[in-house]
Structures are given as structure tokens and as C-alpha cells.
């Protein structure tokens, strides 16, 4: 740097510039945009955390505590809402959703310890139906056409359904969980009890997975054959599933593990009759 600067010493300028940048660095978290949902911050980041948490969890081969980041982190709120007793998980959609009439109010659950610092008090919000999709399966927040809230237990992976179209558009081959990471694969049948089922991804406890971790995830995709009593298929915590899974491992990463369901049979939990 040989050229001279005419009017001010570069060291002084750097100092001033640094001070100016520090003065305008702003708050530590992204700030909500004007005229947009207050949930703007929470939804995509929490969804990303959830996705990343799943990705990290499947990298582990058991023995770890599979902690649910979205539900527990005080730093960020889960991308969830409650409506008519059901819980919905938010996810970004690639194309704006078409709305189809108001549904009244739902609740954004409270989260975190410090509202305003990543946390949030429970909040009522107006919900709308998504065109062609039963509100039992998915809803949206009025004014936010970029986020679809899918009810726990439903499978947006199934092509040919309105729920699938809302999430993936006209791409019946998505999602494809068998790409890239499934280079080294064997087929195995597992039986498991469902712990949670957000966005169709099952968190399960395997009855006997051999060398698989006892707690893991099962990823259905667009090619998964789902067998269930109801239509559309639905799964709840405590249900048991029998699944043919591709056990995907990465050739260069021993920690990588991903179970992709080719066939998924759902058996409803048997609820004991109190009288009998």
C-alpha cells in the first residue's frame, strides 16, 4: 500500500471507520421487518435448527441423548402453532401459498425465558386455510404465504396430495432422501415406536435395530409406500411402525447414518379400555 491518502491518516481513518461500524452494528438478533409477521424471526431459524438438529442426530450412532433443540432452546422459539388441540410445525415453501378462507385464531406457544430476547410469550394469531388442503393437515398464518404449518403426524412427502403440492409444488419426485448420502446402503426391516412425527419425519425408538442406535429417525420420501388404516395416513406418538428402510451410510464418514423408509406400515397404538 504505497499510495498516499490525501486528507486523513489511514490509521485514524481505520479507527474512525471501526468506531462508526461499532456504533451502527445494531442488536444481536435479526430485527423483524415492518408489515410482516412478528414470527418472521422465529419460524425459519427454528425450522433450520430443527433440520440441523435432525441432521446432527443422524450423524450419531446411539448412546447420545437426543435432545430436542427446537423445544428446549431458550434462544429461539420453535416453529410451531396450536389450533383446535393439534400442534403444527412450520416450514418454508418455495412458492407463495394460496389461501382459502379464515380459520379463526390459533396460538403461538410461549417459549424462552425472555420475550424480546429470542423468547416469546404465548400469542394469538389469525390462521387461514391453504387452498385444497384440509386444515387438519396444514394451515397458514394470515399474511404469511411463505410458511406452511403441517400438523404433527401427517406425511407431506406423499406425492399426488394437496399437502405435497403445497410444500413441493409440481415436483412429484420430492423429497428424495436417497440422493448423495445413500451410496453405501443395505435394506433392513425395523420395528419401532413413534416418539414424534414432525413434517412426516419420524423420531422413533427401535425395538431391535441390531447395530442401529435405539433412538433414531426414519425419513420417508416421495417413493415411500405408506400403509395405514386412515386416509390420509396419520401417525401419533406411541404408534408402532414396521418399516423397510435403506440404511444409508457415508463412505467417508463413519458417523453418518440415515434410515430412509421404502415401505412404512403404521399400527395404531392400542389404548387400554379403562373398563376392561
Amino acid at each position, binding site marked *: 500500500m504505497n*499510495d498516499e491518502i490525501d486528507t486523513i491518516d489511514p490509521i485514524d481513518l481505520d479507527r474512525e471507520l471501526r468506531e462508526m*461500524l461499532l*456504533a*451502527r452494528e445494531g442488536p444481536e438478533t435479526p430485527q423483524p421487518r415492518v408489515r410482516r409477521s412478528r414470527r418472521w424471526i422465529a419460524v425459519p431459524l427454528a425450522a433450520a*435448527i430443527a433440520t*440441523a438438529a435432525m441432521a446432527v442426530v443422524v*450423524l450419531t450412532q446411539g448412546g*447420545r441423548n437426543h435432545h430436542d433443540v427446537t423445544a428446549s432452546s431458550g434462544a429461539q422459539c420453535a416453529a410451531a402453532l396450536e389450533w383446535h388441540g393439534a400442534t403444527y410445525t412450520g416450514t418454508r415453501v418455495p412458492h407463495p401459498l394460496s389461501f382459502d378462507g379464515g380459520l379463526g385464531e390459533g396460538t403461538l406457544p410461549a417459549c424462552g425465558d425472555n420475550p424480546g430476547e429470542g423468547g416469546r410469550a404465548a400469542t394469538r394469531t389469525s390462521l387461514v386455510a391453504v387452498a385444497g388442503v384440509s386444515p387438519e393437515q396444514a394451515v397458514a398464518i394470515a399474511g404469511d404465504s411463505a410458511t406452511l404449518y403441517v400438523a404433527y403426524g401427517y406425511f407431506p412427502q406423499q406425492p399426488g396430495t394437496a399437502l405435497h403440492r403445497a410444500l413441493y409444488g409440481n415436483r412429484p419426485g420430492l423429497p428424495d432422501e436417497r440422493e448423495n448420502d445413500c451410496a453405501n446402503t443395505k435394506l433392513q426391516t425395523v420395528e419401532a415406536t413413534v416418539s414424534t412425527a414432525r413434517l412426516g419425519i419420524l423420531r422413533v425408538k427401535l425395538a431391535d435395530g441390531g447395530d442401529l442406535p435405539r433412538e433414531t429417525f426414519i425419513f420417508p420420501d416421495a417413493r415411500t409406500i405408506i400403509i395405514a388404516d386412515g386416509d390420509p395416513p396419520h401417525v401419533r406418538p406411541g404408534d408402532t411402525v414396521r418399516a423397510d428402510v435403506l440404511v444409508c451410510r457415508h463412505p467417508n464418514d463413519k458417523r453418518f447414518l440415515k434410515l430412509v423408509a421404502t415401505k412404512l406400515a403404521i399400527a395404531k397404538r392400542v389404548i387400554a379400555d379403562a373398563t376392561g
Partner: protein
Amino acid sequence: MPVDKTNVTAIARRAVNGDTNALADLLGELAPFVVRTTRLIVGAGTAAAEDAAQEALIDVARRIATLRDPEAVVSWAAQIATRRALRAARSERLRRQSDVEVQAVQSPERVNDHRAALSAAFDRLPRRQRAIAVLRLYAGFSERETADVLGITLGAVKSQLHQARSTLSAALP
């Protein structure tokens, strides 16, 4: 340096190795740095800046499993943030509106004319020069580290930083 590298590296190592609690901790540690770096490059107080910061954080969360070297987590996060910021700055053409919006976020501590001129001139810099200045002077990266984050040569960092200084100096009262 806005981030405690030792602490963050230790957390990143746990997160990459499958500790999901550590992932949340890592995001908490990196968020202020990622958000502010992105915001400063794009233009403080603009919607595009906040969007870019948000997207950068999402990228960090989603890609953590791909991080091969936890020691480089801060540079890695800076690279993600900078790419998001440069893309946002380009698409939003922020310099046209920066004067008004930046003034809005600087109050209530009304700055003196000198700094206001510096701030306005900074917003008129080409986006890559803004990124270099932010990485060097705000984030505390070396010129080599700045070059690595931006994927450009060391010489390019030096020349563009020099150009930025010249432009800013000329704009001051």
C-alpha cells in the same frame, strides 16, 4: 474480535460430532457476529439486511454437519454471512436508499457531522469494499483471512481496502 474463538471452537467441535445441545449453544455464540457482520455489509437498518442476516443464520444451522474443521468455524460462519450479505446488497441496490435508512437506526445518539459523512460514504462504497472493510476493521480478520473468506487474492484485499480508504477520506468534510 467479536467472537471468542476458543470457546466457539470447543462448542463447534461438540456440535459437529453430534451434540445437539452444542448446536444451540453454537448458534447463540455465533449469532451476534453473523447478524452484525451481515447487517454492516448490506446496510444497517434495511429490510434486506435483516433478511440476509436471517438467511445467514439459517445457513449456519443447516450446514453445521458439513463443517470439517471446527477450528475454522468463525471464518466459515463469516464466509456464509458475507456471501449472503453480498448477494443481498446486489439484489436490493441498497446504496440508493441507505442514507435515509441508516439515519433511522443511528438515532437517538445523534452522531456528529464527521461520522455521519463517514457513514454515508461507507454506504456508497461498492459492496465488496464494504465487506472487506467490515471483515478487516469490524470483525478483526487479517488481510489473509479476509481474502480466504471472500475467496479473492491477498492483493485484491489490499488494493480494494486502499481504494475504500481513499474514497472515504475524500468524502469527509
